[in-house]
Every structure is written in structure tokens, then in C-alpha cells.
């Protein structure tokens, strides 16, 4: 094997070793939990789930102690028309990420507890077929300006 080829392979092996043995198998990032707007009955949560494990995972349900009901939904826009439908589950293949983001998959939060206000902590318990992911964030009023 040439020196150049060896130099290219080493970083890949190191990365694989880090992913398989050291890094967390599932990572949640970009968490934004938004309070219901005046007049609306639902808040919304956006986040990214990255599956670094060696198998696909399926998110089956999400709960929150601060909200009576949590549902996964997906907004699609086709021919300029926005449609929102509930999702029963979301599969994340190994080595991939799924974004829950504005204009796509998102998490709906219904029935906030009376003591849940802007600035208070909100916990999401994300149940998948291999365990439970727990993430907490402060309840915001808006997404950061783009």
C-alpha cells in the first residue's frame, strides 16, 4: 500500500473506532422548544436526532411531563399547499440524522401545564425501540432570527 493510501485510511479507521466505541450512539442536537402562540393550543419542538449506532432505530412516541399530549407530525408542501399529518413513528437509519424542523417533521405539544411558561424547563422523553432518550430545554417564544 502506498504511503498516500495509508495516510488516507488512518483517519477513517480512527473515526470508525471513535464512533463505535467512544461516541454516544444516539445524539440529540439543535433543540428548540417553542411555547404555544396566543390563540394557539399547541407548542412545537424542533431537534435533530443522529443515529451513530450500528442499527436503525425507530422513534415510536414522545412524552413530556410539562404537556398533556405530545405528537409527531409532518408538514409537507406540495403545489404550494401546506399539509400537516400525524406520524406514528419515525425511523432513523444507522449513520444518519433526522431533523425535526420548521416546514418538515416536527413535534407538537398540546395542553401545557399551568406552571409551564416561557423560560421554564421542558423535558421530552423520546421512546425508541432500543431505549429512552431524554432531552431538556428552556421553553422559548420564537426560533432565533434567521
Amino acid at each position, binding site marked *: 500500500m502506498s504511503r498516500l493510501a495509508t495516510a488516507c485510511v488512518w483517519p477513517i479507521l480512527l473515526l470508525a473506532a471513535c464512533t463505535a466505541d467512544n461516541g454516544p450512539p444516539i445524539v440529540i442536537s439543535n433543540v428548540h422548544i417553542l411555547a404555544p402562540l396566543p390563540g394557539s393550543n399547541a407548542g412545537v419542538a424542533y431537534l435533530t436526532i443522529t443515529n451513530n449506532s450500528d442499527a436503525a432505530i425507530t422513534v415510536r412516541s414522545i412524552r413530556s411531563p410539562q404537556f398533556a399530549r405530545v405528537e409527531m*407530525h409532518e*408538514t409537507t*408542501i406540495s403545489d*404550494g399547499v*401546506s*399539509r400537516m399529518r400525524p406520524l406514528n413513528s419515525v425511523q432513523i437509519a444507522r449513520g444518519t440524522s433526522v431533523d425535526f424542523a420548521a416546514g418538515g417533521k*416536527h413535534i407538537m405539544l398540546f395542553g401545557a401545564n399551568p406552571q409551564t411558561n416561557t423560560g421554564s424547563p421542558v423535558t421530552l422523553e423520546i421512546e425508541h425501540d432500543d431505549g429512552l432518550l431524554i432531552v431538556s430545554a428552556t421553553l422559548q417564544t420564537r426560533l432565533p432570527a434567521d
Partner: protein
Amino acid sequence: MQASRRFLAIVILFVAISGGAEFIYYAFFDQRARPEHAMVLPAPMALPAFSLLDRNGDPFTRDSLRGGWHLLFFGFTHCPDICPVTLQQLALAKKRLAEEGGAFPGIVFVSVDPERDSPDTLAAYVDSFSAGIEGVSGDLEQLHKLSKPLGIYFARSGDLDGDYSVDHSAVVLLINPAAEWQALFSTPHSVDNFVHDMPLLTSDR
């Protein structure tokens, strides 16, 4: 016969030269900026007559849109996703242009969910994005009078235990001061797109 052929040849030559010159002018010499994101209608379309209620419960009609530029966006307050994002983008674009000394059309949020969106509800909702946004709605017949000629679709979906969603067009329509539909922003929307195009779209009247 030969004279008419010569005349025809001269006409064709003239058209070719003038067309070519026009192309060269616009391609290489006309440096005026043009809208890059909105689709401008070939001819503005007069809005149909309709009668809705504004955020104060007062009549909101075609005449309410005369005399100034406006943006219409159709949605509903229980929409957790595309409606707040779009209204936030419009509010941010308005703020950015105001900081540069520019004007921005009046923003009108048309609720297609009159069952849940009363004037009071709409007022509280639109005020959470920016002061000065109008929120209007009315009975379904009047909403359809406005929406159908503009190609705006909406329909209730997913009724479950009294909760439901509303499928709806997510475009933003630009209405000129003569209460005519002038241009259309298709999805996906962005603050930058609105900021770039709006002064160009509203500067010719």
C-alpha cells in the same frame, strides 16, 4: 411580387435586428436590479369583492386594501409550523427594511379557520410577531370569494376529538395600491428573499 418579397425581407430583418438589440441591451447594459424570487403577474388582477372582519371586528373589504401595498398570507392560528415561521419571516423582513429606511407592505394574515379564530384571537396572535399586522377572517363563503379567484386552497383535515388541522396554500401574495394582485412569493420563503425583492416590486407605482 418581387417588391412584396423585398418588403417582407426588410420587415424580417428589422424585427431580427431590433430583437437582437433589445436582447443585447437587457443582457449586457441594463443594470437595474429585478425581483429574483417573486413571480410578477403579466397583468395585475383586480381582487374580487369580499367582506371579512378585521382584528377589531370591523368590516375588511377590497377597499381596505386600496391606497397602499399589502401582503396577503392565508393560514390559521392553530397552525404550529408554517404559519408562525412565515409571519416571523415577514416581520423580520419588515424590520430589516425599516432599519435601512425602506418601506414594507402592510401584512395581512387571512385566517381560513373562522371557527376558532375570532377577531380577538387573531389580534393577540398577529401582535406576537410585530405591531401593525392585520388579522382578518369571516364566514367560509366570504373567504372563498377572496381565495378562489387567487388560486388559494384551504380545507379542513384530520378531525379528531374536536381537534383538526387546515390544509392551506402557503404562498404570499403582493397586492398593489389599486387592490390588484401583482406578484406571488412561492415557498420556501426566506427573509432575504422578501428583503431583496420587496423594494423592487413596490417601486414602480
